């Protein structure tokens, strides 16, 4: 089962629900990390959202179209659940947590050609806070591209926007992030 593709496991799950555990196990860590990166919330809240994601995915398994990647499909559900959580908890101040991703600065900062001081670990937290000051639409694409390592096509499938729009959002997001970092640096 370990070597089977997601799409094959989906087929097997429709026939026998016990096979769903392989998909759930395969995506538990990835999606938990994605939700936390997207919302900047504590693990408990992220786990509650993730549970809903898996239940929703199971109920809607027959709507999955195998011509697209299963990972994009389940990431989309996770994205929608995260947005829905954000709407419900607008007034609540979300707890700021550390992002465990180690390569965030390597990938983002080199791509953005940022000053070296931002790459240093002791400023990771500041960097993250700047990232979360961005509009959700820009943060979404940056998280998917640079933290989740998704390509344009996958991002397009997850966010349900055209690949062209993904490209321009990423390019604008990079400019906005750089501006914010420079502004943040001047303020110190």
């Amino acid at each position, binding site marked *: 089962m370990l070597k089977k593709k997601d799409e094959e496991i989906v087929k097997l799950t429709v026939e026998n*629900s016990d096979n769903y*555990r392989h998909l*759930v*196990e395969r995506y538990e860590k990835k999606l938990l990390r994605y939700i936390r990166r997207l919302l900047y919330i504590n693990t408990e809240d992220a786990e509650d959202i993730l*549970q809903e994601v898996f239940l929703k995915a199971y*109920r*809607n398994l027959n709507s999955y179209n195998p011509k697209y990647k299963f990972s994009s499909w389940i990431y989309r559900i996770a994205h929608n659940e995260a947005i829905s959580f954000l709407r419900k908890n607008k007034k609540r101040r979300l707890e700021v947590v550390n992002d465990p991703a180690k390569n965030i600065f390597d990938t983002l900062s080199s791509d953005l050609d940022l000053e070296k001081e931002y790459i240093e670990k002791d400023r990771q937290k500041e960097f993250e806070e700047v990232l979360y000051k961005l509009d959700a639409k820009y943060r979404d694409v940056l998280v998917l591209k640079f933290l989740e390592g998704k390509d344009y096509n996958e991002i397009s499938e997850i966010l349900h926007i055209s690949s062209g729009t993904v490209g321009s959002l990423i390019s604008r997001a990079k400019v906005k992030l750089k501006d914010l970092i420079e502004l943040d640096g001047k303020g110190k």
Partner: protein
Amino acid sequence: MGKVSKNVLEKIKKAGIKPIPKWHFMLKNSFIWGLFVVNLVLGAIGFAAVIYLLVNNDAVWDFSLTTNIFQWILLAVPVAWIALALFFLFVAYYNFKNTEDGYRTSVWSKLLINIGIAVLLGLILYTSGFSARMNRLLLDSIPFYSHTLDMREEVWMRPEEGFLSGDILSVDGEEKVIQLRDLKESEWSIGYEDAIVKSRVVLDVGERIKILGSAVSENVFEASEIRPWAGAGRGMQEK
């Protein structure tokens, strides 16, 4: 196995949760596509009506029939039909956007596809004569249609401003007088001795005509030009 995985699988087993059947999603997709097609066709019908009314309303081309730009917009531009056509096109666009692959097409492409199909279909409906028949049917069956969607009757029912129209009751060829029942059911005597009668006009009982001139007294009108009801005045030669 992680905590979440365990919880999820237990919940599925305990609550007996089952995947929603495939036909449910197929029905939903078909419904969205169906709505898209219906709204696109309605938008096309709207465009066909707009084309028909623009082509067949004298006030569109003949600015002497209106006194100012506001009156021209009110009487010549089929605003209500344009709004209806755009409304249906917007709904069609929204349905298209919500189809499974709708997001893959850019906004401009989606708009172009929608407008392109609706205009093309609208032109086909217009040239096939559908819009003329539909307009006639709506005029006959909806009382407020001639005051809201087809303003041609409003253009030609302003006798005090020199515009009159109606059906011929009788024609006195020697005295050059026509008895006419206007579109609001009043009867008029129309003198047309000095009038220009356009070539397509048939001065027979039952024919509907449009008359330019002036109201001489109550229910007496002196015509300076007589036009056929159908057509917008262009290409009509004097008799």
